[in-house]
């Protein structure tokens, strides 16, 4: 009987198992990708540890190979797998329905196969093209094919979420979609529109080109298609964290979400405005009309509004929670938050980093200001705040609750875990100061400066003070990553299980203002209509430029220069 119960550990709700598989594959990718982070930080402290790293991992040939692994595994694979696992589970749990389980497993297998195929050339140094893989740098075909399979898997997740929602709607006529499910469906719909650019780039241009079927590709066309997806992908990273902040965090802090309709409005705004903004990554590109750059600037600024609203909602929900627990004073309530809860600790620190990241993001998006910072270390200094701090910390916090909840295994050493979270936050904030400032002082990003040619040595000497901060940050982050990943994997691998009564529950936050009887909620619930609108807007702002470039297609042959 014992074996039978173990086999059926997920029988009550089989979506638990597939969600866990997504999350664990994501954590494995993150572990490998993050390994290179501290070495990169030390590179920007003018310390070249790559000769030493090579003794440990002989297949690593250069800084740039590690950087490609870092970007691909962290920013593309880890984030997507967490979205796939966490959103699938939360939506199914809230709707009390199963997604199409066979399709969900197919998505997981697509991820795994894609990941393995892409990993082969990455590890053999045959696709050291960085995670933006700008042609005409030309990697091994397996890299593009593997990456395409991973994107296809994400599109399967779009289908899964929308199909589940549609089925729920049929069974619950007239009822508003529950909040977390609404946020999940809006996120996936947003990604469905966002992903088109990358899919076209990979399928029409890069895969045929890498296989030798196309002589050359148009570099500007590829860049433009890449950034069609490349900015909204940021929201695809971010929105699953927002789901945690709106859907779980208020309850865990002992309070309530202030407004359910406002949360919906935020996600609806992201659905519509996330994609038509990619040119703010191409301000420095010739060949794109400044008029369209300006249009994208205006829309980019507009997408800052839902994030500003989120900052308000989250802070208010936390304050309500802390006051309900006896908090007093203008800021004194902060001490009354349940800081020992992994989700509260990690999400709140993440949200603080996100405020700094948002301010920097507005600089980047400000057309004429961007030239000061474009492709300097300011840029990685900036985006480690939203993605490597806000999103990653939130996912860590969620994993520390979700893994015990899904597997019935208790979190190992919660104290070490909390120490890891606080160190990660400290390290990232320190690195942000170092990298932002060095960027303003003119140091380029993506540069192996610790291995610069002898005749150039010292050209970045004026940034020595800030390099020290990167050195400290890299060391702190190495310790932080070790602690956090140790706790999560030790939790997964242990034999111990909680009894059913001890199993941690995962409850959704209640709202002070609910959705009932609001006309606005009814209108916002017509998600297919809004999805179509999102597609129309993105076509309007992209088509004139894409058609113009495509009609003068430049055929650039590929190069392998690493």
């Amino acid at each position, binding site marked *: 009987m014992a074996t039978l119960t173990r086999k059926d550990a997920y029988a009550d709700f089989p979506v638990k198992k597939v969600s866990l598989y997504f999350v664990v594959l994501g954590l494995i990718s993150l572990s490998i990708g993050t390994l290179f982070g501290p070495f990169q930080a030390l590179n920007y402290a003018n310390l070249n540890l790559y000769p030493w790293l090579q003794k440990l991992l002989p297949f690593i040939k250069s800084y*740039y190979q590690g950087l490609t692994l870092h970007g691909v595994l962290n920013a593309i694979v880890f984030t997507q797998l967490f979205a796939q696992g966490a959103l699938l589970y939360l939506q199914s749990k809230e709707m009390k329905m199963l997604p199409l389980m066979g399709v969900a497993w197919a998505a997981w297998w697509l991820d795994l196969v894609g990941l393995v195929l892409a990993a082969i050339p990455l590890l053999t140094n045959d696709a050291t093209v*960085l995670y933006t893989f*700008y042609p*005409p*740098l030309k990697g091994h075909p397996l890299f593009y094919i593997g990456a395409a399979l991973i994107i296809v898997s994400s599109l399967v997740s779009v289908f899964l979420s929308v199909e589940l929602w549609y089925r729920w709607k049929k069974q619950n006529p007239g009822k508003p979609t529950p909040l977390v499910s609404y946020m999940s469906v809006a996120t996936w719909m947003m990604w469905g529109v966002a992903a088109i650019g990358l899919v076209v780039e990979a399928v029409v241009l890069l895969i045929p080109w890498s296989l030798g079927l196309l002589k050359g590709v*148009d*570099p*500007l066309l590829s*860049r433009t298609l890449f950034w069609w997806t490349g900015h909204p992908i940021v929201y695809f990273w971010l929105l699953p964290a927002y789901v945690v902040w709106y859907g779980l965090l208020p309850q865990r802090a002992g309070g309530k979400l*202030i*407004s359910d309709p406002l949360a919906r409005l935020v996600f609806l705004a992201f659905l519509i405005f996330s994609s038509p903004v990619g040119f703010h990554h*191409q301000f*420095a*590109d*010739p*060949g*794109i009309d*400044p008029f369209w*750059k*300006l249009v994208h*600037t*205006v829309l980019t*600024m507009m997408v*800052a*509004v839902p994030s*500003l*609203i989120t900052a*308000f*909602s989250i802070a208010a929900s936390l*304050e*309500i929670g802390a*006051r309900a627990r006896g908090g007093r004073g203008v800021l004194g309530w902060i001490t009354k938050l349940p800081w020992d809860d992994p989700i509260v600790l990690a999400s709140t620190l993440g949200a603080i980093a996100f405020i700094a990241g948002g301010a920097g993001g507005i600089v980047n998006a*400000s*057309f*004429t*200001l961007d*030239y*000061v910072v*474009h*492709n*300097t270390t300011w840029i990685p200094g900036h985006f480690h705040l939203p993605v490597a701090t806000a999103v990653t910390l939130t996912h860590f916090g969620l994993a520390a609750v979700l893994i015990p909840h899904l597997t019935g295994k208790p979190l190992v050493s919660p104290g070490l875990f909390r120490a890891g979270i606080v160190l990660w936050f400290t390290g990232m904030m320190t690195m942000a100061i170092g990298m932002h400032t060095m960027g303003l002082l*003119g140091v*380029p*990003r*993506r*540069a*192996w*400066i610790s291995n610069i*040619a002898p005749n*150039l040595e010292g*050209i970045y000497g004026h940034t020595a003070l800030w390099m020290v901060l990167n050195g400290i940050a890299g060391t702190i982050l190495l310790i932080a990553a070790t602690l956090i990943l140790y706790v999560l994997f030790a939790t997964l691998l242990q034999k111990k299980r909680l009894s059913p009564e001890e199993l941690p529950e995962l409850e959704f936050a209640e709202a*002070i*203002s609910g959705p009932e009887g609001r006309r606005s909620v009814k209108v916002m619930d017509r998600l297919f209509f809004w999805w179509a609108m999102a597609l129309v807007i993105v076509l309007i702002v992209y088509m004139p430029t894409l058609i113009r470039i495509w009609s003068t297609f*430049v*055929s*650039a*042959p590929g*190069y392998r*220069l*690493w």
Partner: protein
Amino acid sequence: MDKHVIEAYERGWMLFSLAMILIFLVFIGYTLSGYAFYVPDAARRIDPTTVRTGGFPKPHVEEVAPGKYQAYVIGQAFAWLPGEMHFKVGDEVTFFVTSPDVQHGFYIHGTNINVQVIPGEVAKVKTTFKRPGEYLVICNEYCGIGHQNMIGKIVVEE
């Protein structure tokens, strides 16, 4: 806290957010209309395989009018051509930059000249050097194993 109080704060914050964004946009419009000659323009499209064989002028600097210069620059793995350029304070320089191989970044340290060099495009960008000194021309787009060494120089004399 009372629900209506929160809702009032919430509306206030939304108005503040919108107003802030609008003010930023006004500033961007202002800088664009007056100062943004450093926003790169496309001179034309070009077949990258012809850049070294006559499709693009040989890398050089020429004076087109007193104090006005045109510089034809090629960024290639892993060097700028010409590797060194000389100007006088107050010279107005229009750069034409392209690449025969992969993407590079044409970034003149200490200025707002920061242009993506894309095979297939001839980028055009203008600046006036106001301070004397040595300016590094730093490649700031990954272009391969020697990317960190792709550094040129502009010397501006009194």
